[in-house]
């Protein structure tokens, strides 16, 4: 390439290998889901070649100018770009201690929760051997659907901090890659234990139905999944509880296992109850009668607003 350049007064030339590496580096900064095709690496390299070897622009400046050019072409904001240089690379969840840091993590999806907003595609809890964190996958990122219990390498995800608690965000710059194998998810570093009466059980507790789509599992409202419409739901048990010690309020979620343990009722029994009454709400009512107003010791990680109950015991 340098052969056809204007004869240089300077002897500085940039090799084809360096140009190619720089070109690929630039392309990686752009999201994969652009409205329009990304230029090829050759095109970018040729642009860099022109600036460096023909117009004597230092490579760094040529790189900056090329990024700026393609940003204009695709109508992207500076913030839409990835800067691999800022990424902390592979880290463990427990070591997350900065807001807005780009990281790569290899994690198991511990739990998926129902998204509370259309802009959220999936939300839940991910874990590795070091601990657990909440994650949010934004709908506009259009990423692979995560499944509970599976292991993934999540690259270019960004940390976020709220009230001293960290979470992981997956956006359009992030990548998801399914990984074989399992992870023994560690106890959360943020496990808390509290003793307080349960003052309320919120609606949406008891016998619920989830979307049967294995990539979805949203809780159905009146037989409808917000994503998949009318579906034949699959039964599940949970409790959304409010604990209140007179000074602070703590929301908690009991999953099926925790609900069966504290409520003294199995999913099968709950289904029979509902069948007899021709109404699923009898299960929620029974749980309210059996549980609200008593004091408990509960333990689990706090994720967002919720304590995810691992252990619960009524205090006699």
């Amino acid at each position, binding site marked *: 390439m340098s052969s056809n350049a204007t004869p240089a007064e300077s002897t500085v030339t940039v090799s084809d290998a360096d140009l190619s590496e720089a070109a690929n580096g630039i392309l990686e900064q752009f999201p994969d889901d652009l409205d329009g095709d990304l230029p090829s690496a050759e095109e970018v390299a040729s642009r860099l070649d022109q600036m460096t070897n023909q117009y004597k622009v230092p490579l760094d400046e040529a790189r900056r100018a090329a990024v700026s050019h393609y940003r204009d072409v695709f109508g992207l904001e500076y913030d839409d770009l990835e800067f691999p240089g800022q990424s902390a690379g592979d880290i463990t969840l427990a070591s997350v201690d900065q807001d807005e840091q780009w990281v790569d993590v290899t994690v198991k999806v511990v739990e998926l929760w129902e*998204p*509370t*907003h259309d802009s*959220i595609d999936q*939300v839940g809890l991910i874990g590795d051997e070091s601990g657990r964190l909440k994650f*949010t996958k934004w709908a506009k990122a259009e990423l692979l659907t995560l499944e509970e219990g599976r292991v993934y390498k999540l690259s270019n995800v960004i940390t*976020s901090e*709220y*009230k001293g608690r960290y*979470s992981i*965000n997956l956006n359009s710059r992030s990548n998801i890659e399914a990984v074989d194998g399992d992870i023994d998810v560690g106890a959360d570093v943020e496990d808390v234990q509290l003793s307080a*009466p349960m*003052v*309320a059980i*919120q609606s949406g507790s008891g016998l619920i139905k989830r979307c049967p789509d294995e990539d979805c599992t949203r809780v159905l409202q009146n037989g409808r999944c917000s994503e998949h419409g009318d579906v034949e739901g699959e039964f599940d048990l949970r409790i959304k509880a*409010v604990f*209140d*010690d*007179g*000074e*602070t*309020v703590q*929301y908690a979620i009991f999953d099926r296992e925790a609900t069966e343990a504290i409520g003294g009722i199995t999913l099968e029994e709950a289904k029979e109850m509902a069948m007899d009454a021709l109404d699923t709400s009898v299960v929620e*009512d029974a749980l*309210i*009668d059996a549980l*609200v*107003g*008593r*004091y408990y010791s509960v333990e689990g990680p706090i994720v*967002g*607003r919720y304590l995810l109950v691992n252990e619960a015991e009524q*205090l*006699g």
Partner: protein
Amino acid sequence: MSESNPESTSSSTDTENNDSDRQGRQVAKRAFAAEINDATHVFKQSDEERAPNFALLPSGEVANRYFLVGTVTEVNDVGNEDEYLQARVVDPTGTMFVYAGEYQPQAAAFLSSLEPPAYVAVTAKPSTFESEGETYVSLRPESITRVDDETRDRWVAETIERTEARLDAFPGSDSEFVAMSRKQYGDSLDLDTYREAVADAREDLGLGVDHRSDGSESENTVENQHEGDDATLDEDGAPEEEAFDESEVAAAVANAELED
């Protein structure tokens, strides 16, 4: 409610941003009947129509809701046409009145089938009504469940702790609610009443007065006040309750529903 809560705006990644029900849920305060029934000043902290009501506890805190455990001794239908149930809920210091009508179907169903005496746990919102020139506190249940004596004792112990903490903090406090209590309740404010209530609660649990942090002093205080306060303490007595105009009670309480 969410407007006044700093949590609701501070994070764009908070997934529950739009959940105003859970946002800023008010803590359920612990207080004994002796104090709850004296917390007759109910106010809003903002002009917003949907702003929550707060009852001003004489000990200098506010309560949008209470969590309490007591013994239901009696349930009466005080409504005119529609059922309006009044439950007498007794703790070691006095009697509270819990009302449940058509807007509290679960509580009403629970109370109508309850056979007193029974221990119950109640999460309730306070409001007041006037009858023959007096202001009375009524409690509107959000939930009411049957519990055992151990839960009841645990609540009494917890409420002793919370009440003492408020009373201990009162004298030197610059809290706006302590100032408000002094202003609102003025001459009728007698915190010794609640010290005495705490002493009664301790006795109920079989605890000595010396469990208090400043035990030696409290023993004297309790002795000294005992005689003078008998009249006010005895709120459980028949006279005031008989003075209720039951339809007025039902109407006043029903109106309070609509405020929330």
